[in-house]
């Protein structure tokens, strides 16, 4: 038994990643936990190398920050997988690997002799995970989709937007559709790995992004499934069967406070009233002394709504005067589950995220630079998450993998390069 604090939990795992940006996040989740992930790129480079934003806004194969983010710790090997020899190289790599991650259009790898059934003959315990928009051989498998159209079709967009329904529904930002599919791919791969440790068996995994989004809609699905209820979108809060009071309160500098349901218990309710009185922002609470209950809110009780409205106005008055971040901290210190609407850049400067080590430094030695990256989604004591190397340059690892691992001779390596196979 070794002490493995600084070696990722997946340190012994070999993964071959084939495909598009749809699967890139899953590859990163594996690689950041220590797996050796080889990204097979076409000779011209993965398409996402052409994605904005670029380092210093200069469009170059090595400058895409999208590429930088989604490919940390991965190795890059360029292979033209549409050539016979290229296919042979992939088969040889798979023979030495644990997992194949495929996010190409369903059927594409099969057509090249690189599908699961074919690769299984090279390695019968391989775990082959295919991530696609609609699943393999499904009715809509041929549809052309992007993150936007998938999030619209799969359900999340229906719940997201503004009270005014003449404004379109909104896609949550950040390519979350792709990332949601990848979370399920990661769950499936880890499950298959655990099963393989017990049984020795590999298997084929089919992850359906459309289905993943359908089951990532919370009440939109379960209200309809349980009794046919249909939720309607509202500004900055949960889509609901019935309209509910607003929860985002603007403060100085256009920063919003998110108060949710401002007080969840009777104790909190009275402590909130006391605080607002203390601040001198609560006009006249009159008869309104009892806390609004979940039941009375759910029933749309008028007096409850009026009472809540009065308190929200008082919070707005207070928020207009105070530093929003300080107010968020004060509210939390007083026991209220309130939030501040941070920008992603706010997060990177926030003392909490920095104290937890969420902000990590990644060396780019060739540029003589170190840049700050978003860090671990979970803190492991042992087998830790880490970024050991920046995203690879195009074909950076051709030699170490093809010569070092596959034992290709120097002359074959040279010949295949000249022939445009690698």
């Amino acid at each position, binding site marked *: 038994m070794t002490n493995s604090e600084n070696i990722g939990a997946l340190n012994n795992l070999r993964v071959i990643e084939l495909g598009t940006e749809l699967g890139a996040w899953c590859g990163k989740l594996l690689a950041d936990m220590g797996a050796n992930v080889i990204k097979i790129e076409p000779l011209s480079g993965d398409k996402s190398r052409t994605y904005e934003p670029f380092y210093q806004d200069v469009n170059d194969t090595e400058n895409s*920050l999208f590429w930088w983010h989604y490919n940390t710790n991965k190795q890059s090997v360029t292979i033209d997988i549409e050539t016979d020899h290229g296919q042979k190289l992939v088969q040889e790599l798979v023979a030495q690997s644990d997992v194949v991650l495929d996010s190409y259009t369903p059927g594409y790898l099969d057509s090249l002799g690189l599908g699961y059934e074919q690769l299984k003959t090279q390695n019968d315990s391989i775990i082959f995970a295919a991530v696609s928009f609609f699943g393999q051989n499904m009715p809509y498998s041929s549809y052309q989709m992007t993150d936007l159209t998938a999030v619209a079709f799969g359900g999340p967009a229906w719940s997201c937007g503004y009270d005014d329904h003449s404004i379109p529904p909104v896609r949550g930002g950040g390519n979350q559709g792709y*990332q949601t599919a990848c979370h399920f791919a990661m769950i499936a791969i880890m499950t298959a790995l655990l099963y393989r440790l017990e049984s020795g068996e590999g298997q084929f995994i089919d992850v359906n992004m459309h289905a993943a989004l359908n*089951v990532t809609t919370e009440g939109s699905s379960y209200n309809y499934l349980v009794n046919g209820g249909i939720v309607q979108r509202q500004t900055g809060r949960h889509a609901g069967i019935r309209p509910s009071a607003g929860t985002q309160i603007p403060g100085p500098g256009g920063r919003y406070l998110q108060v949710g349901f401002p007080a969840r218990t009777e104790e909190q309710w009275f402590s909130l009233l006391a605080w607002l009185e203390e601040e001198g922002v609560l006009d006249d609470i009159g008869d309104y002394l009892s806390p609004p209950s979940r039941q009375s809110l759910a029933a749309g009780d008028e007096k409850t709504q009026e009472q809540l409205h009065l308190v929200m106005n008082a919070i707005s008055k207070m928020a207009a005067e105070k530093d929003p971040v300080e107010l968020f901290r004060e509210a939390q210190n007083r026991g209220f589950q309130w939030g501040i609407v941070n920008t*992603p850049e706010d997060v990177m400067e926030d003392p909490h995220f920095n104290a937890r080590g969420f902000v990590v430094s990644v060396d780019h030695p060739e540029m003589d630079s170190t840049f700050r990256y978003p860090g671990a989604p979970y803190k492991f004591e042992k087998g830790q998450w880490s970024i050991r190397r920046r995203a690879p340059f195009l074909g950076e690892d051709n030699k170490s993998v093809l010569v070092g691992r596959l034992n290709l001779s120097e002359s074959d390596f040279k010949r295949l390069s000249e022939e445009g196979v690698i």
Partner: protein
Amino acid sequence: MTISSINQKKALSHIRICDFTGQLAGAGATRVLAAFGAEVIRIEDRLTEGSWDILRGQAPYVDDRVGNELGGAFNNHNIGKLGMSLNMRLPNAKEILTRLIKVSDVVTENFSAGVLDRWGFSYEEMKKIKPDIIYISNSGFGHSGPYSNFKTWGPIVQAVSGLTFQSGLPEMPPAGWGFSYMDHTGGYFMAIAILLAIYHKKITGEGQWVDMSCTDAGASLNGPVILDYTVNGRPLKREGSPNSNRSQHPIMSPHGIYKCQGEDNWIAISVRSDQEWHNLCSVMKNDEWLSNRSLDSKEGRVDSADQIDDVIESWTKGFNARELMDVLQAAGIPSAKVQTPPDRVDQDENTAAWELFPIAEHEEMGKVRVDGVPIKMSQTPPVIEKGAPLLGQHNKYVLEELLGYTSEEVKNFESEGVV
């Protein structure tokens, strides 16, 4: 490759989880593990009848009945788990929990930081009970850092982690997510963390504590935008930004959600290439655009994005979104209706073919459709059959069969209000 074989092998049947999770951020994690065969023993508070979980007994309901065992969301999030009730305030409960930890692989919880410590079951104490125990906590801000005592729920996590701000249109307040995206996704990350920690233990023999902060997990989902800030110094908060219906990574135009005929009927359209742009112009029979050289490049279209969007919307308005989607898809243009719940649950052929919303049998609610699993596996497919457990439904199994108490002792626990 299609997965058709019915196979009853369960990938995780050798894993037992002592599960204190609740709501969706925690319950969602152990839900998917239960579908793969893990024995998830969900512990609920005997005294307050499970009110640790705010969803227990809450709407929606299948019929006119209302009650603690009839909550629709609770059922959805706790499919296939075993139910155990325990009053942690009583000394005997600590004895029972000690025995349960001894026979479990993993202890999970998503309380605010510190609850298990107060019961006397800090990680250090649990290690004394079982040296290689895996403990996974998922709290709003984690167990370290200045905000570790702060409390959250989904929308707060989304706000603080930068996700809410990213979701909206220019000159408007944040639209946010309209649901607890980070309860779902926090649950996914927690499931991944559990599986990773089990894998690590299988390889090395080491147990550990994984301290998951749901806001860290949320913040990790903003990668390219964060690098644009840290590397290029360009914040997301700037004029005209964010606009999450447009595409920035990569830049595309047109790219948006457009009004169609009828009430709240919308279509999403993305054009990724010059070829798709030409196809769109042809479908729209827009000869002016086809002959406009300045729109032949992505850069030219991005410069004219607002005008292009206006013209597209004046065109889409005349169509039903689903029918227009078929026309555009036939021309190879990425497009999709913004589907309503009935559209995607009951009218969607792909969802039907996948059998995405299976029926689970709940002791009191009866047969209820629930969220399925978007994963198929050739050897160990996920299985959803049984609904959420009733409060304490499996006390007898856990206490007698797993923990070795006599039926006499169990009766005493019941009468003392321990279970």
